[in-house]
């Protein structure tokens, strides 16, 4: 195996590629010889943490992944869920954290591009984006810059490919000061009989390359950038970040969907992490075949590229597909019409080997399965963090009671975490494709679903992405459970039935036992909640090494839940739609203020245990919401989360097109500050014109419910049943503070 212009392969070079000594030995064993330079590159990416999930595999198997509606779960490019009428929702969330820290605009943009390809690869038309973003403190100029660039990057890509960004979440915390998170979610719609998988079957069938030409960008993005933590030299990794071209992506989407209308294509896979290598190995491995590739046929943007570069390039907007033999010209014609490159670069073989030719020489000849399937699986040591007890220790009695409820509410609404995110989502096209029913700013986004004829079907899909990282830091199992419960609750607030979830597991360095413990605990929490709420895990992504110079982020398992609404026209919004409605609180308020926003912002403490998560209650609550919305008993429903009841009431009052005040009187058996700002889970503030019927229905469903006030006026007044209100303030004032939270800090108010 010779490889001209290539350095000599030895253990030292393997280490430089991020491979361990053991892994290098195994490679030599598998091949029965020293690998060529290209082969070493292939093993290093395929066995990287990012591609092989070697630290997480053992845990990911524990996820509940099956359910009545699940057509394809983890292992494919994205999860596929049946939504009836011969249609399915295809969705996944993925991280692009490290590239977005080094080159925020391009990193975020290509994150969007990558997740779109995962979805349309399966034959689905991408219809909705969500983004989950986390930055360091917004008063630091670095993070103002990163926020602006990331948002512009997401917008520049999502807006230009014509996929609406319909929701998301953004948080700021010092734990992300050295490692921001950019998680991108996409959902597409496909006909259930036209789902395409990454398969390379049919010996002799052509392997075709379509899309952009291959350049030298993004080499080792997966192995060196995504699979190691940051340090002072991270800027030197800039060349590993790819550059996105949304225009080509848009053409690629249309061309691929057009192609899939024919039956000329057998399997298709995007060239994402580790590019040509990963896609060809995965397709061959999933079909038990082999592939013979000719690198000279690969469309190239630069001259003088060597096999190593061609195989590992992460140039964007490229797909690999297997066509029916004899129909190459028909396939090529479609791509040419869209002015995209297309080339036959190889054939499917039956020998289970990857044979790669370049300039008349064999540069790679390795068995497919040992690379793709037998990647190392690690059982890393786990240990609870030494300071866990310290984190969780909390005595409410030692915390001074709140003495200024109005001031506290103002401060919370004015914080970047709770304040309006309009500055962000205003920069995204929320409307293209014409199906956005609930735009960003509500609890969950809601889109209507079109059928094969392009006409609306009557069905709607709700989706929400959530995580409370502080809770996950205090108790990763509870925190992760709460994230699933909250995302599902947000979806349920529209009236939709939560169907399934996708997750993006952002953690620190897995080589540290306390990080692996956090990871294992979070998996446990997600699994328990997903099972109880019957929202199986259908896709996801793990992002380790989110730390800088030894300081890890809070564990951040972001959860996106997708739910189905049989009749989208019957849905609830999150804001009070009009005066004169009764306000009903569903769920129970406990004296739970540990890990709350109030405690963090007003008392400077991030301690205690997160609120308990009663999954059985949660399940009943979601059922109640679906039933009540279907019977049009509920006009609006808003999840109580960060900032507790006080913030929830304020959001209900000002998040709609018109400000609608409210008078709320609460029975109070716990500390008033815990009642107003505590973050007990499983609660929803609902507005109804028939409180009696709603409370009756809640009783039948086993959900605690009481009427606590009514909408109307231009003030928000919240108080005990008897005595002076705790707060009584003009809604317009609250609204102004809330709206200005982010622009004011960016000097753009």
């Amino acid at each position: 195996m010779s490889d001209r212009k290539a350095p000599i392969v030895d253990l030292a070079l393997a280490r430089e590629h991020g491979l361990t000594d053991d892994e290098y030995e195994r490679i030599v064993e598998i091949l029965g010889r020293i690998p060529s330079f290209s082969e070493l590159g292939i093993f290093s990416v395929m066995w990287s943490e990012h591609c092989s999930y070697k630290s997480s595999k053992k845990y990911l198997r524990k996820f509940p992944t099956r359910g009545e509606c699940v057509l394809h779960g983890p292992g494919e490019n994205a999860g596929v869920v049946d939504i009836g009428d011969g249609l399915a929702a295809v969705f996944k969330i993925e991280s692009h954290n490290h590239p977005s820290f080094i080159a925020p605009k391009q990193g975020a943009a290509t994150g969007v591009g990558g997740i779109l390809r995962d979805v349309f690869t399966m034959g689905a038309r991408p219809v909705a984006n969500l983004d989950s973003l986390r930055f360091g403190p917004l008063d630091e100029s670095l993070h103002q810059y990163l926020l602006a660039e990331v948002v512009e990057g997401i917008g520049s890509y999502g807006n230009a490919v014509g996929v609406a960004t319909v929701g998301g979440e953004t948080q700021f915390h010092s734990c992300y000061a050295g490692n921001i998170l950019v998680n991108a979610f996409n959902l597409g719609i496909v006909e259930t009989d036209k789902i395409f998988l990454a398969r390379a079957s049919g010996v002799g069938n052509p392997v075709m390359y379509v899309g952009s030409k291959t350049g030298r960008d993004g080499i080792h993005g997966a192995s060196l950038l995504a699979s190691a933590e940051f340090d002072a030299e991270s800027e030197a990794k800039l060349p590993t970040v790819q550059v996105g071209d949304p225009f080509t992506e848009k053409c690629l989407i249309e061309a691929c969907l057009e192609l899939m209308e024919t039956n000329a294509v057998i399997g298709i896979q995007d060239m994402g992490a580790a590019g040509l290598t990963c896609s060809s190995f995965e397709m061959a491995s999933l079909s038990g075949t082999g592939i013979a590739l000719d690198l000279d046929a690969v469309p190239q943007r630069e001259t003088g590229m060597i096999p190593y570069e061609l195989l590992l390039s992460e140039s964007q907007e490229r797909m690999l597909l297997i066509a029916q033999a004899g129909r190459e010209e028909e396939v090529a014609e479609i791509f040419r019409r869209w002015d995209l490159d297309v080339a036959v670069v190889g054939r499917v073989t039956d020998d289970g080997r990857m044979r790669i030719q370049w300039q008349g020489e064999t540069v790679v000849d390795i068995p497919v399965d040992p690379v793709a399937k037998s990647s190392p699986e690690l059982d890393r040591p786990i240990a609870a963090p030494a300071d866990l007890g310290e984190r969780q220790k909390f005595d409410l009695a030692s915390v001074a009671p709140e003495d200024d409820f109005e001031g506290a509410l103002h401060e919370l609404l004015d914080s970047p975490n709770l304040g309006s995110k309009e500055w962000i989502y205003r920069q995204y096209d929320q409307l293209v494709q014409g199906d956005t029913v609930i735009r960003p700013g509500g609890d969950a986004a809601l889109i209507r679903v079109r059928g094969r004829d392009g006409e609306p079907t009557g069905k709607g899909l709700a989706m929400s992405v959530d995580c409370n990282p502080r809770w996950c830091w205090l108790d990763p199992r509870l925190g992760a459970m709460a994230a699933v419960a909250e995302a599902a609750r947000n979806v349920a607030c529209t009236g939709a039935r939560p169907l399934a979830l996708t997750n993006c597991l952002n953690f620190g360095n897995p080589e540290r036992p306390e990080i692996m413990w956090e990871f294992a605990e979070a998996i446990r929490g997600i699994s328990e909640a997903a099972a109880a709420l019957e929202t199986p895990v259908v896709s996801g992504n793990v992002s380790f090494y989110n730390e800088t110079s030894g300081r890890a982020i809070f564990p951040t398992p972001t959860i996106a839940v997708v739910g189905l609404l049989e009749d989208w026209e019957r849905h609830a919004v999150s804001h009070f739609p009009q005066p004169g409605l009764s306000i009903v609180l569903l769920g129970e308020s406990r004296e739970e203020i540990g890990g709350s926003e109030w405690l963090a912002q007003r008392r400077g403490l991030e301690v205690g245990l997160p609120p308990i998560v009663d999954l059985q209650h949660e399940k009943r609550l979601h059922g109640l919401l679906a039933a009540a919305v279907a019977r049009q008993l509920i006009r609006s429903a808003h999840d109580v989360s960060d900032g507790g009841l006080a913030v929830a009431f304020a959001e209900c009052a000002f998040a709609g097109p018109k400000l609608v005040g409210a008078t709320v009187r609460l029975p109070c058996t716990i500390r008033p500050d815990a009642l107003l700002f505590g973050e007990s889970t499983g609660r929803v503030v609902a507005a109804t014109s028939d409180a009696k019927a709603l409370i009756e229905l809640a009783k039948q469903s086993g959900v605690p419910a009481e009427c606590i006030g009514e909408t109307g006026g231009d003030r928000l007044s919240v108080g005990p049943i008897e005595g002076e209100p705790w707060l009584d303030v003009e809604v317009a004032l609250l609204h102004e503070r809330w709206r200005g939270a982010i622009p004011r800090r960016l000097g753009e108010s």
Partner: protein
Amino acid sequence: MPPPRFWLFSVIQFPGSLDDRDMRFAFDSVLKASARLVWHKEPELPLGTRAVVLPGGFSYGDYLRCGAMAQYSPVMAAVRRFAAAGGPVLGVCNGFQVLCESGLLPGALLRNQNLHFGCEFVNLRVERAKPPFSSRAVAGQVLRIPIKNGEGAYFAAPEELSQLEANGQIALRYCDESGAVKEASNPNGSVANIAGITNQRGNVLGLMPHPEHAAEAAIGGTDGLFLLGSLVDAVFGAESAR
């Protein structure tokens, strides 16, 4: 009575067009006027074309300059002939940019003043209510229609601007809820709050807001139909009168 099927609204599809299918949906499914996507490489408009619509998006990725490349697409020669013969041509967002770059409309669209892409519902004052684009509205009426663009700041040189004013070519202006045209209601820094203009003859309209995204009550409201519906009326009326 809906117009016969062979009277066609041709929605031009450039590579990078994004709101093309939404525009077709608004004409075809909402307004029941036959609309068809026409590929930009076509040398001629389809037989039966009675109106041409250039939809929003990022034609050619907005590379070079928004709309700059699309003007050289083969179909644009046919669109120019169609406009010259008095046929109605509507350009929305990127379509407006293409019309300016093609010289079918005066002026240019610049980067938004705040340098950000902006997607939001805005208020528009209808400056003139007349066929073929605004006969369903009344002058001074306020329409609520979304904008979504990064380069939507309309610019015309002072002498050009006074020409536009004098000729009554200004079709729509950004305003507040009551119809007052104010600096604060200008979302992108357009000169004189201009949201849409016509050519001198009045048969070519370009506007930044997206009427096709305000065509259904539960999805963005129906104010966009005052504009799109006027075009349907114009085509239908003109044909019936023949």
